[in-house]
Structure formats: C-alpha cells, structure tokens
C-alpha cells in the first residue's frame, strides 16, 4: 500500500477538530468516549458523509486495553521530508554499525575472514573517521575497568559466600595454564613474606604452617572460562595469617607469587596475582593447604594456595612462594594478558 492510495480529505484536522472527529488525533492516554468512536469513523469511505453504520456504544477503555489506531493528517511535504531524513539517518546508522563492528573485531578474527585484500582499506577507512586501533584498545580496557568497578561496588566484606554440603562436591580440574610443576620443589618449599610491620623478611616452611588453626569450607570455584566446581577446602584463614604477620602501615595489597609456575614448554613462568587486604581479611579467604580432607596435591598447588571464593579462579594462585604487602597496586598476570584486574564474582 502507498500513501497515495489515501484520497486527501478535507483538512479539517487542524482547523476544526470538534466538527470532524474522524481526523482528529486522539491522545491515546485519554480513555474517553470519543476514542472508541473514532476507529469506525476513520474507516469510512471519503465520499459517504453522515449516515454512519451501527457504531458500538461509546464505552470506557480499561487501562490495559488496546487503544484504537487513529489516523492523523500531515502535510505531504513535511511527511516526505521527515521520511527522507529518517531513512538517511537509518542508512548512516547501518554504515556506522558495520564500520564499528569491523573496528571492534580482534585482528585474530579478521585474519580468518575472506577478502583479505579489502581489509586494509576498511582499516584505513575506520582510522580516518577516528576508529583507530589505539582507541579500540582504550574502549575495551575501559569496558573491563567499568565492569571491575561494578564488581567492586557490588562487593561487601560482610557477605558470606554460599557454602555447600560435602556431598555436593564435584570434580575439580587441574587448569594449570602451562605444565604442572615438577614435585621436586616440594621438599625445599619456602614461603617468603615481606612488607611486614616488623620490617623483616620472614621465611616459613611447611612445618611452620602447623601452628595456625585449620578452617574448612565447601565453596564453588568459578573459572573465567565458564566451568565451575564445588570443592571442599581446608586451610589457614588469611585474616589469622595477617594477624600473625602484620603488614607495614599503609599497606593495601597482598601481592602473591609462585616461582614454581611453568609455561607450556616447561620453562619457568612465575605467576603473580594480588588481592586487596580487605578481601584477604574476609573470613572465607583461605591460604588453603587441604583439598577434600587431604593435603593439597601438586596439581592443585601443594603445599599452599590462595582460596578467594569471591574472585575468579585465576586469582586463586597455586603453590605460593612469596607474599608481599604493598601500598601500591601490584601487577596481575592475567590482567597483563587482557583480562580483568579484580575478577570479583
């Protein structure tokens, strides 16, 4: 159908609305009687004037009732101009969305797309309108930072993380990104603690951990990849550890490092994460030494790993060899590889 099909009628809509309600725009929000009358009237052929067919009795529309559609008369020129404007804007929007989508695509994805010859032209076009790869990086970093801020705003130190019954435990996979470390490090394992109020550097062996009370909890372990597992952990409360080895005044962060971490080829690839001390003091934050009632196996970070159930799995560093309390925010292994910084769950 086309707008030309509609015979232009008396343009009484503006001049005398009360005389010809058929062309009067009716505000949909007013459930008065005239609204019900208009729909049949609008359908009348233009030639026939007064003798209306049997109209339904005017009645009140309920608040959820559909409002009848009411035609309005618009100047043809104005309508055409508006329509042209809207279609031009729409076309511009489609072009902008297409170029924006291209700009956001990772280069890895682009390399798999056909018509490689046109890729440079598209990149140049995008850069010319300001969509440079630097801006892309900034935008995506900003998106991660914003999401981190949301996570921090949601975080409450007083909130208890959901716990499960031991019967609900599910298998926990060894997700070491590289090779699982050689167990040879275990007999000589030491934990070095620095940034202490005492100004000293402490070194603990496995036997030194025995003086701390052991706490157990069954919590869900959630990986950034999307899998999760319910596991039964046991270990030292980080809060107790902080009380025994108080950090220097002004310290806000606990930077943890595992010197025994390996890459996929078995070469040393030290792993490092950090959590803020408030999160470290949460009663469910453990320096875990047990899994499933047994000492931690190598693949889960023997002899001691971090367990922060309010953070993604990648913050739960295995086989910690070093803890340093710092005032300045420390680096994070996966944040440097394009992932979020705080990883709050």
């Amino acid at each position, binding site marked *: 159908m086309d707008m030309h099909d*509609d015979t232009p009628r008396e343009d009484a809509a503006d001049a005398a609305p009360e005389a010809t309600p058929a062309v009067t725009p009716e505000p*949909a929000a007013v459930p008065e009687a005239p609204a019900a009358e208009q729909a049949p009237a609008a359908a009348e052929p233009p030639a026939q004037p007064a003798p209306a067919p049997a109209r339904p009795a005017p009645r009140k529309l309920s608040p959820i*009732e*559909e409002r009848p559609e009411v035609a309005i008369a618009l*100047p043809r020129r104005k309508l055409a101009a508006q329509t042209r404007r809207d279609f031009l804007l729409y076309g511009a929007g489609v072009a902008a969305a297409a170029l924006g989508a291209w700009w956001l695509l*990772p280069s890895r994805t682009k390399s798999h797309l056909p018509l490689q010859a046109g890729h440079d032209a598209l990149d140049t076009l995008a850069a010319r309108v300001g969509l440079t790869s630097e801006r892309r990086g900034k935008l*995506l970093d900003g998106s991660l930072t914003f999401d981190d801020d949301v996570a921090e705003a949601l975080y409450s130190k007083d909130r208890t993380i959901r716990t499960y019954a031991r019967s609900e435990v599910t298998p926990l996979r060894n997700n070491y990104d590289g090779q699982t470390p050689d167990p040879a490090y275990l007999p000589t394992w030491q934990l070095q603690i620095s940034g202490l109020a005492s100004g000293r550097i402490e070194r603990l062996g496995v036997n030194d951990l025995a003086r701390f009370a052991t706490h157990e909890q069954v919590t869900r372990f959630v990986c950034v990849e999307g899998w999760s597992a319910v596991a039964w952990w046991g270990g030292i409360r980080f809060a107790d550890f902080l009380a025994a080895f108080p950090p220097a005044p002004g310290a806000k962060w606990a930077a943890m490092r595992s010197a025994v971490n390996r890459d996929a080829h078995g070469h040393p690839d030290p792993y490092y994460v950090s959590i803020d001390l408030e999160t470290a003091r949460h009663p469910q934050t453990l320096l875990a030494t047990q899994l499933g009632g047994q000492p931690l196996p190598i693949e889960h970070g023997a002899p001691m790993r971090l367990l922060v159930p*309010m953070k993604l799995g990648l913050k739960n560093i295995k086989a910690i060899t070093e803890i340093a309390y710092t005032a300045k925010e420390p680096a994070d292994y996966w944040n440097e590889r394009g992932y979020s910084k705080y990883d*709050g769950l």
Partner: protein
Amino acid sequence: MSRAPQSTDTVRVVPKHHGLVRITHWVNIPLLFGLLVTGLSIYWAAPVFMHPWNPVTHTHDGLGDVSVFIARLLHDTHDDPRNWIYNHFSLGTSSLASALSIHWLFAYLFMINGALYALGLAAGGGWRALLPRGTDPAEAVAMLRYYLNAVPSLVLRKPNPHPKIAFKYNALQRAAYFSMPIFGALVVASGWAMHKPAMLGWLERLFVNYDGARIVHFVSMLVLGTFVVPHVILVIADGFDTFRSMITGWSARVKEDGDGHA
C-alpha cells in the same frame, strides 16, 4: 500538528511506534549480534552441554557434535570440523580475553538499550498492544492454519483468506512480541547470575545453580536469535509499509482492515 497549508497537500497516516521503541529496536540488532559472536567464543572455552567422549566426533562438547555434523554435510574440510560453529558464528576459538571485554561492553549497552525500549513502550502506550488477550488461543490456531496453508494454497491455487484478527497484532505476533522482552530480561538476569554468583548469590539460586544460569543464558540466546528468522520473513511478506513504520514512525495503512503481520 502545526497549521497545514492546503487540503490537497495533506496525507492521512497512522502514527506507529514511539521514537525510543524504533531506535532501540534497530540498535538491538548489532548489540545482539555482537553478544552472540562473543558469547559463543566465551562458550567455547568451557561448554556447558558436555557429554562423555564421543569416539565418532572426538569431542565432549555438544556444539562440537553439531559442528562435525554440519561440516560433514557441507563437505567442509577447511578446518577442524569440531569448531565449525565457533569458526562461523563467533570471534573464533582461543579468543577468550577479547571476547569477554567486548561481551561486557555490549552487555552494558544492551541493558541500557533495553531500559530505553521499556521507557518507549511506556511513554507511547505501545505495551498495551503486546499484552496477551482472551481471543489469543483461537486466533493463534487460525493464524497457524493460515501460515501452514500459505505455500500449499499458492501451489494449488486455492484461496487462503487472512483470518480476522481482533487487535493491532495477531495472536502469534503478540505472543512473540510479548515474550521477547521477557527473554531479554531472562538473558540479562542469567548473565548477572553467572557473572557475579558470589555477590548475587540469590540470583544464582534463582537459576538453581551456576550451570543452571549458563543453560538459561544459552537457551535465551537461542530463542532471541531464532525469533529473528520468522520476524524478518513475515516483515518481508507483509510489505514495505511495515518496515518503513519501524523507521519513520508512521504507517500509510489507515483503514482498519486487520492486516499487518510481522
């Protein structure tokens, strides 16, 4: 309306779709597309629909099985057949970091867009046309019969009159338009449940557990994505006026002849 010039220079049109509804409708498309391609890349990292090792498809991943099936059907030996879906409908495999950051960006935009859509529905009163009505069951059957007859009636050259519909949209349309915002809300809620299960534990429990939220998220994505197919077909079948009305906000179909199905 301002004052009109001459009577012959006016056109009678029916105003349709609040401006916010029209803009957010179109913005939804790139956003959902971006969420889908990044979401599938994230899904690849750890599929939720897993099964024991399948010796035929060589995978634990249900989508991997479907991928192998499609790749064999198309004789596509170009790449690992287990990754066919990921290679064609996502950013690709091993792209988790970039997929996550783009997914968050689009997810926040999708929520803002959804809120503006709801605002437009409320401001324009358009929500009333989406509510289920008492006449829906009978009309849905009539419409189904009409759609199923569409092709046979063309072949057999038999008439296939459009059923009389009681409201602006027919029952099938209304069911679809009514459920889209619900699935939109569901995809957002399940997304938050798996994004912040520790702080929003109550939301995670609403989906039973973490994987429950993942399954709802995945299924909602499928529903939202599948809706597009009949939606586009029916808009094309219905004609240019319907398409134009979602851009310009007016329809030239002034008579209430009960057609219009998209």
